[in-house]
């Protein structure tokens, strides 16, 4: 009898389906990641030199800085009001201008509101290009062009905001139900008329939500714009860094944090109202 039962077991084992061979794919992915990592970590090829020795040797420097930052020096506060106000003004102006520009641009960049493929693709391509340039690069070049001050900062924020607001809003239009378009077309409307009277109210919540988001990002960004001379509180950050005043630096960072949290809370309330 034992013979028969062991045979049955063997048969059952044989019926287990073969495990699909996923390991070649896994190995491939891991291999690609490893090779990329190795290449980027090779100084001879222009990659990053990973210098763990420096960390072992100098980590106390960093720890000192952090310790300094953990004891914020509040006496700097009065000096921050003016630059902070400028930062907020820049953020609002940048968001307002880009909001105005984003209305027609989002409509041109979405399929339901702009069925003409060539113009839609052209708008999308230009916006992709605008988004490909980092914000501080704009600021650096604009400062060289129009001089130090809030103007290059505001233009930078406008370019940055238009890039993200148009992308997110046009995607929202693309994914929303747009049957009402057909009714406008059937009534003999031009695309512009349909967009203005029906697509605009339909898109409004997504649009306002993204503009508020861009306002929030603007405050964060304009904190660093000052590093290249484009106005705002970043100027003070740069100055404090120059004097190694890390305790003052952390006060400013804290201040920005509070403002950002406040804007975030306010915009959450507004967003809920709009639903």
């Amino acid at each position, binding site marked *: 009898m034992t013979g028969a039962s062991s045979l049955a077991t063997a048969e059952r084992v044989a019926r287990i389906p073969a495990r699909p061979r996923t390991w070649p794919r896994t190995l491939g992915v891991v291999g690609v990641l490893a090779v990329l990592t190795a290449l980027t970590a090779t100084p001879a090829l222009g990659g990053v030199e990973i210098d763990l020795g420096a960390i072992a040797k100098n980590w106390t420097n960093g720890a000192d800085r952090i310790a300094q930052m953990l004891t914020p020096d509040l006496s700097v506060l009065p000096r921050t009001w003016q630059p902070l106000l400028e930062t907020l003004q820049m953020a609002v102006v940048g968001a307002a201008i880009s909001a105005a520009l984003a209305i027609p641009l989002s409509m041109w960049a979405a399929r339901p509101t702009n069925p003409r493929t060539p113009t839609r693709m052209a708008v999308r391509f230009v916006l992709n290009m605008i988004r490909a340039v980092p914000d501080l690069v704009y600021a650096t070049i604009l400062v060289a062009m129009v001089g130090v001050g809030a103007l290059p900062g505001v233009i930078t924020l406008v370019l940055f905001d238009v890039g993200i607001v148009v992308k997110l809003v046009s995607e929202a239009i693309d994914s929303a139900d747009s*049957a*009402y*378009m*057909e*009714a*406008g*077309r*059937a*009534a*003999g*409307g*031009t695309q*512009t*008329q*349909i967009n*203005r*009277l*029906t*697509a605009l*109210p*339909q898109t*409004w*919540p997504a649009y306002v939500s993204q503009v508020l988001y861009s306002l929030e990002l603007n405050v964060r960004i304009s904190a660093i714009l000052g590093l290249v001379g484009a106005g705002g509180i970043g100027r003070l950050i740069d100055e404090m860094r120059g004097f190694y005043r890390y305790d003052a630096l952390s006060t400013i960072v804290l201040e920005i944090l509070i403002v950002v949290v406040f804007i975030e809370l306010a915009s959450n309330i507004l967003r809920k109202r709009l639903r």
Partner: protein
Amino acid sequence: MSETITGSEAGGVAPPASGPWPIELDDVTVRYPNGVVALKNVSLSIAAGEMVAVVGLSGSGKSTMIRTVNGLVQPTGGRVTVGPHAVSELRGRALREARGDIGMIFQAFNLADRASVFHNALVGRFAHMPTWRTMLGLASAEDRDMVMRSLDSVGMLEKVWHRAGALSGGQKQRVAIARALSQEPAVMLADEPVASLDPPTAHAVMADLEDINASRGLTVLVNLHLMDLARQYTTRMIGLRAGEVVFDGPAATATDADFEAIYGRPVQARDRLGE
């Protein structure tokens, strides 16, 4: 009321249509880019002021046919004429003006849910409004009056400032009818106008269409898939099956056998709406 239509007047504002108009389909074929032939050599002649039902199962081509009448679908062969407009030959502005004289209502109502009832009905004035007015969101006194009267005639005036999305299905379809009436059309098209409604509401909407035909004298072309509605409310019935006309005769006397020939299968309970 003269019979001549001058096309466009100064300011790009089309005059109201002097209807009703006949509809002519002459050897119309629609072949979609994916190769599907939705209409095969359809020839029809609908007299001014007729109330005609187009009956067929989904996929029979009735949706395509009704859309060739206002040029939302352009035929790949043949000719469509509505009153003075050779719709199948028109493009751009001339086509939009022709559409302005042809009202249309849809199965899914196609309202902009977030816009007010007023603004949805104002869509019907597109062909009569210069674009700058639409851009500013300013309706002229006449446009406003026209919209209010249309809403009043379907009993929706008191909801004029409500959001379209907040209405019930029957109310939405009434707003859609008001939108079409605001066009002051000569012809009214309806694509399965009651398929999304419950039986009592469906009868009410069909009665509205009957009234539009009787009291305003508009030519009405309505797609239906339910036999009893076709018999009760229309005078003439056209049966479509696989893109071809298989029945054309008085609706009231159409027998169950006629419907079986149109459907290509025995009549079932779901082909009737009931009361």
